[in-house]
């Protein structure tokens, strides 16, 4: 088998992290890794380097504007977009993980390896149109995440969260698989395009629709749309903060992109099936926004709040699918970029403030903003962006989606969306209130004085970078949209034409 340079180019970004993922466990065999920082640094360095190289390759391909491929791996613009997306998220998670694992006092090389595996799975998941490969990508991204959720395994909640994620995730994968099989069986192909054409030509058999439902459910589970969302808060709470951030961002992102490939990309929107998908997504998006936002209100734990918030954001993202115009999908991609920054910053903030273990309640954040003002301001920017207040990027994400929603006549959904985001403002402001408007309790002050100063240079840096991206999304959105998101769509799945 001869591999052309194009094939290599498509393969390299996946290959490098895979190799690193295989090597890291070997390094972690070193017994001294608990005590010798250099070993840890070497492992982190290796992982970071691998991701960095991968990122570099992606940007290289992006710069040339080629659509490279290897077998079923389609590194088109959309794939490159998701690759950049995943590598950035993974790198940020890695940087935060360094701090977090030091705060938690537990460090294992396997974690890094699994993170890389998962990242590879994500890249694959989002850059193939073959359902079989998609399934494999799904499994490759999910299985390490189950374990990553349970990383801090001396905490029983951690294991519990992993277990819950595993069971629900396995059911969802099985459904995805069953859907794939049904579609394969009834259309005779595993390629999404072929399936789409077959549906168009032969019409939608009920069994094909069942297959489509099961497939859709697999995506929606990863996007954590209601009612497939219930694993989300538990898994996020269980996992280390950077992993939770990574899960919320990267998993959701690639699931959205994969869904984009599957539905508007293959089945098409104006077919009868496509319209059904739109209707279904409208219902679920509404439910997701409502339940996600409402459930976030009474939370006392910041991580759970952020989990519900990520659910509600899934609702906004799905609204873009409901609108279904090319502009709306561009908006969705833009939203994803901002969402990456927002959630990595939100979870990174917890790491950067040095909150560990059970101490992720709102009370634990009290007065921290004044203690570390720069970080506090970044956190505020993040929260306001999550709430969709201009001039933060989060507003424009919502703006692009709602605009198309209104344009396509879904005014009711748009009203629901803005109302939901009004509710969300309340709980995001609670973070702001805790950071800046409240004084720490006396016991907290005492505890803080006993503990050594928190070292979190890396995670702070990531949070600041994220805040910068958020602000850039607020002021230079045309750069992001036209230069990045729209290109990914236009030259990606051709739905812009």
């Amino acid at each position, binding site marked *: 088998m001869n591999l052309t340079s194009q094939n290599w180019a498509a393969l390299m970004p996946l290959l490098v992290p895979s190799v690193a993922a295989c090597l890291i466990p070997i390094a972690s065999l070193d017994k001294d890794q608990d005590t010798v920082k250099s070993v840890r640094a070497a492992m982190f360095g290796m992982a970071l380097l691998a991701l960095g190289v991968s990122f570099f390759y992606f940007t290289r391909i992006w710069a040339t504007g080629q659509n490279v491929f290897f077998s079923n791996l389609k590194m088109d613009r959309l794939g490159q977009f998701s690759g950049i997306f995943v590598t950035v998220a993974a790198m940020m998670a890695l940087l935060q993980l360094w701090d977090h694992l030091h705060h938690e006092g537990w460090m294992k090389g396997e974690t890094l390896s699994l993170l890389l595996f998962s990242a590879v799975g994500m890249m694959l998941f989002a850059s193939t149109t073959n359902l079989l490969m998609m399934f494999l990508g799904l499994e490759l991204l999910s299985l390490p995440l189950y374990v990553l959720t349970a990383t801090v395994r001396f905490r029983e909640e951690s294991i519990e969260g992993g*277990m*819950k994620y595993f*069971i*629900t995730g396995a*059911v*969802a994968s099985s*459904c995805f698989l069953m859907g794939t099989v049904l579609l394969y069986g009834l259309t005779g192909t595993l390629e999404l395009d072929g399936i789409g054409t077959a549906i168009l030509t032969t019409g939608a058999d*009920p069994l094909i*629709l*069942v297959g*489509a*439902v*099961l497939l*859709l*459910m697999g995506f*929606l*589970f990863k996007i954590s749309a*209601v*009612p*497939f969302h*219930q*694993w989300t*808060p*538990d898994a996020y709470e269980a996992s280390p903060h950077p992993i939770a951030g990574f899960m919320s961002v990267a998993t959701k992102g690639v699931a959205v992109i994969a869904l984009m490939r599957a539905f508007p990309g293959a089945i098409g929107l104006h077919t009868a*099936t496509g319209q*059904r998908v739109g*209707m*279904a997504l409208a*219902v*679920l998006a509404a439910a997701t926004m*409502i*339940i996600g*936002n*409402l*459930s*976030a*209100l*009474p*939370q006392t734990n910041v991580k759970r709040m952020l989990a519900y918030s990520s659910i509600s954001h899934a609702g906004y993202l799905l609204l873009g699918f409901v609108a279904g115009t090319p502009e709306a999908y561009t908006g969705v991609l833009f939203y994803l970029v901002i969402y990456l920054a927002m959630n990595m910053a939100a979870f990174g903030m917890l790491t950067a403030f040095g909150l560990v273990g059970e101490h992720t309640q709102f009370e634990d954040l009290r007065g921290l903003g004044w203690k570390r003002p720069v970080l506090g301001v970044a956190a505020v920017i993040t929260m306001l962006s999550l709430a969709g207040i201009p001039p933060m990027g989060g507003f424009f994400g919502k703006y692009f989606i709602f605009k198309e929603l209104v344009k396509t006549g879904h005014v009711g959904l748009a009203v629901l969306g803005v109302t939901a985001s009004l*509710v969300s403002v*309340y709980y995001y402001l609670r973070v702001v209130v805790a950071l800046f408007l409240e004084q720490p309790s006396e016991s907290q002050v005492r505890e803080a004085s006993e503990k050594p100063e928190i070292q979190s240079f890396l995670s702070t840096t990531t949070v600041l970078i994220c805040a910068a991206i958020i602000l850039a999304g607020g002021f230079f959105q045309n750069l992001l949209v036209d230069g990045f998101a729209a290109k990914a769509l236009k030259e990606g799945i051709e739905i812009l034409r």
Partner: protein
Amino acid sequence: MQKIAWLIPILPLIGSAFNGLIGKKAGKKAVSIVGVGTVVASFLTALWVFFAMKDAPGHRLDLIYGTWMATGSLTVPFGLTIDPLSGTMMLVVTGISALIHLYSVGYMAEEEGYARYFCYLNLFVFFMLTLVLGNSLPLLFVGWEGVGLCSYLLIGYAFETETAPAAGLKAFLFNRTGDMGMAIGMMALFALFGTLTIGDILNQAGHMQAEVGFGVLTFATLMLFVGATGKSAQIPLYLWLPDAMAGPTPVSALIHAATMVTSGIYMICRLAPVFSLTPITMTTIAWVGGLTALLAATIGLVQRDIKKVLAYSTVSQLGYMFLGLGSAGFAAGFFHVFTHAWFKALLFLGAGSVIHAMHHEQDLFRMGGLKEKLPITFWTMLIATLCIMGIPGFSGFFSKDEILYLAFLKSPALWAIGLVAACCTAFYMARLMALAFLGEPRDSHAYEHAHEAPMTMTLPLVVLAVGAVVAGFWGIPKVLGGTFAVEHWLEPALTYGHAEAEAGSVHEGPAMMLMGISVAAAAGFGLFGWSLYKNGTEKSERLAAKFPGAHTILLNKYFLDELVEGYLLRPTRWFGNVLWKLFDVIIIDGIGVNLPGALTRVAGDFTALLQTGRVRNYVLSMGLGVLVLLYIFLK
């Protein structure tokens, strides 16, 4: 050269600014010079302008200095109008003000807030002159509200006491209630005429027919009259004036007797051509005036505070003026303003002199026998008393009689009311004089120290006394062979804009008889009061004991203050509280704002409950989700 008329109001303003900003540092002497000097200068300018006006064609000067407001269809210039009406009023205001400023120099000499006092007083003159001279209703309104403000400030001059600020507040709020009416009236006139310049309004009014029934014009004039009742202390807004006596006595003399309180009458005269188009309003004015005259006079019968007596007397006299106006006797009403200014200012200054001598004792029942100690005061006050009683030869007689005569022409009932009020007036004035100056001293200590006031205070008394005697001869009624010159003089102003001047009132029939009756009644009651109180209070107490009910009612001023407090103020406050605590806090904020918030919270608690923590339930909900999707896809 007439353009310098702007100096007339501005000079006192300069004085006020000087006294207010640097008066305290400059010392009392400088304050006195500036305070009095600017008003005197203003008076002299006014005289000059007055004569210029007399020479002007049509006895009228219209001076425009610029534009105040101009937008859309509304243009309000800064302009002064000097015609016989405003010219006379301007002279009265500046003249009497000058005298009272002079008087104040002596009266207030010991006061801490000397500069502040003169600041306010000068400011008052400025606003009063703006009111008088302003050529448009908004400008008139500036003075209208401004004098109210100065009245508030001067009544509350002793701000560190409990009562004075309260009285000031009361005065201001009653005034403002009237101002509200005034403002509405202005708006109505603006809507009607499309302008607020008095000259233009009167020009247009001249071409209109008298209104039949209750129309827009009647509404406008009634509202303006509401304004007049506030400023000129008529039913139902007169309650503030007696309380206003908490201010220094010169203030009472100037503001609450001679000038400000007559501005209501002045305003109606100013707009006489408009008012004469609305018979309903005119009748209302007459009746309100007559009833006020009676009501206040009866209350005045039993007051113990020397200034309160004079205050009710003022209210009563103002009622007379309105009675006159309402009976279509604009000239007569204004004539009474003119004469009243002299003798009432004199009465107040005299009372001030008494109070000054008695070390701020105001209770008549603690005075007595002051005739020897204060001869100038006594004699000048006696002249004023005779004036107000309406004894022939003194100014009050001429003006009051004209009003009573016109009232009779309007309705005999009004005349009867006026006559009763006149009798009461004669009685309480005689009572006042007798109690204060005759009999034995009832407070020997104060009596010992009593002494005649300094020059600055007695001089104005004398000047005013002369004025009070002479003023009446300006308007000798036709029935006595006079020409009622005042009417002729004011005619250009009162009939301004009318195509043809109305024929002057014709005197005939029972005029002499009516005059005789009223003079006799007044003299009779005066003598009755004199004799009753000449030798102390015993006789009167016996008389009061015979009519305990009436006495209590009168002593408590018909309980009107209590009624206002109980049925107006307290319910308003209660209503405000209800609005705040019930409507604002509970209904809008609670139900409208916090309830949705709380409901959202509860809904959030509920949806969070769905998260049971059991993985089986999670799978179940996923299954339900699939069912929903299947339903949507296969339906």
